[in-house]
């Protein structure tokens, strides 16, 4: 298998995530797009680990997984708070501090 197959797949996932973060309005969908980007990064870590026959790629992928889980927990709590205060989870409505 070529290393590039995995790297290009990961780049595609990452860029799809970038598109989702920029273009989505619902806060939960933005968090899902962030997860897409993290999934792409994880594929990179594991592919390079396999390429160099080193286990560090797998260890770092596990750390990324953990951080992603923490991020989703905090992120959804914030989304819940936004919904409770504004009665909407649309990020376009969060413009109180707009000049």
């Amino acid at each position: 298998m070529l290393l590039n197959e995995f790297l290009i797949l990961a780049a595609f996932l990452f860029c799809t995530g970038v598109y989702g973060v920029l273009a989505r309005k619902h806060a939960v969908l933005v968090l899902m797009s962030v997860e897409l980007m993290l999934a792409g990064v994880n594929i990179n870590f594991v592919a390079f680990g396999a390429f160099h026959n080193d286990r560090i790629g797998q260890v770092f992928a596990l750390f990324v997984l953990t951080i992603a889980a923490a991020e989703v927990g905090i992120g959804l709590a914030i989304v819940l708070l936004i919904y409770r205060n504004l009665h909407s989870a649309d990020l376009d409505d969060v413009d109180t501090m707009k000049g």
Partner: protein
Amino acid sequence: MIAENVAFGIIAAAMALGALGVVRTKNVVHAALYLVVVLAGGAAQFILLGQEFVAWVQVLVYIGAVIVLFLFGIMLTRAPMHPKDSLDNDLRWPAAVTALFLVGILVGLLVHTFHADKIHLNGPVRTADITNDIFTTYIIPFEVVGVLLLGALIGAVVLARKD
């Protein structure tokens, strides 16, 4: 060798379609289910690379816990199942241009740098070796991540609690 590449192609196509589904679908619950396809495909790619442990952790943590959290978030924010207005904002075209630009640059650089580098697999990586690494070389990051998870847990409870 050919079987591996065919398997990679099938899984990669499913993952790409799932990723596009996550950012394109009009139904929030469907987006979560498309995300399951992407993450399960990722786990399958890890198994293809012989990295078994991280694959099963991905299945347990992502598909088992994170997706359930997302579904709870969708329920609690009463996300519209059949929204009348779009779930996208006005930035769709600039975002598409940015993403295409980024994917173009990344693919160009990757092809230029790693054009024919092959992955030579020497059998699956043993879980015992991974855990040995985590609990000896990387014990400090491991403990720090544990404290971070605890902090995130307490923070989420404090934020989401009704006072």
